[in-house]
């Protein structure tokens, strides 16, 4: 069982992540709050996610495989336990809500499709992505 990510860890990386988000999306740094929706509130598009991951990899010197956020959110659930025909299961939703704890509850809709998950992503989601990548890099030595 991996240790939960702490607020201190998030606070440590947030300034760099926020700068990156503001730069990638061309928005004001003040708008980049930890829990804003990157798509709904800051206008991110799918190519922006690729760009943001690329920028994070460079600034934190980590490797972040594509699809990593969903994989992290899925946790110990198998793919079949997490989703059925592209729709997230109840167990999957519980897991997702727990992983994306910073996302206000009203933004989760049910039923929700896997491909809709990116609409939930926030700057804090990306902080957690960086932290888990840093931990994995450390564990791999």
């Amino acid at each position, binding site marked *: 069982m991996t240790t939960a990510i702490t607020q201190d860890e998030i606070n440590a990386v947030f300034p760099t992540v926020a700068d990156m988000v503001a730069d990638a999306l061309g928005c004001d740094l003040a708008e980049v709050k930890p829990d804003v929706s990157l798509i709904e509130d800051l206008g991110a598009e799918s*190519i922006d996610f*690729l*760009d943001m991951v*690329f*920028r994070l990899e460079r600034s934190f010197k980590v490797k972040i495989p594509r699809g990593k956020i969903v994989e992290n959110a899925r946790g110990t659930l198998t793919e079949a336990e997490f989703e059925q025909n592209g729709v997230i299961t109840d167990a999957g939703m519980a897991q997702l809500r727990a992983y994306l704890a910073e996302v206000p509850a009203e933004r989760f809709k049910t039923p929700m499709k896997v491909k809709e998950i990116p609409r939930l992503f926030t700057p804090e989601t990306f902080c957690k992505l960086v932290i888990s990548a840093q931990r994995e890099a450390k564990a791999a030595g």
Partner: protein
Amino acid sequence: MSVALPDAGIAGKTALVTGGSRGIGRAIVELLAAQGADVTFFYQHNAAAAAEVVAAGTAAGLAVAAEQVDIRDAAACAAAVERIVERRGRVDILVNNAGTIRDNPLLAFEDSDVDAVIDTNVKGVFNVTRAVAPHMVSKRSGRIVNLSSVSAAKGGRGQTNYAASKGAIEAFTRSLAVELAPRRITVNAVAPGVIETEMSKDVRELAGDEITAKILLRRYGKPEEIAYAVWFLVSAYANYVTGQVFSIDGGFKME
């Protein structure tokens, strides 16, 4: 009334040209460097020719560097692009010029005749472009020019492999133009006809008269005539051009 031509916007830009030690690639390297770009070119085999291009550029006070990179090797492409970015902070211009030819009638092909051409001409372009494009996306600007060939559109005996590879490049160009347009990156292709280079030497010697008879201008092209088209596409004059294939072939006629 006087209309001033705008600045071409190439001076100070960072350019990468693949296959830059000889032929068309060398002409592109020389023209972009002469216009003030900082040019790095990849070459695969000919270290002596590459050194000559670098020496000539350096002697003229231009910024020209060479890297020996096999573009079939994705990791090598990524590492070499990383070195350019470390030095210059960005890549503004990518010219996918490197290509190889293995003409043979289909019935006489060895497996390697197909693999060599597809691996270099198609996969090589993917490898280099995948290494460069994220940097352009981050900067929200960039110019990509891919070298196609008259063979992509017009049949040529013994060229099924080469023609297929260049047809792929034209399709790649149009799709990538769609993907990257929102980030203000243009993607175009130049399709040369028969140009006076080492690569076309055999075909010119074998079928010279037959070929020139098909060219409206009745002569082969010169490498610099292709470089001018590439220059246009990476210049500010082509700010509004993307997803296009420019034929520079002296008016090559259909079969």
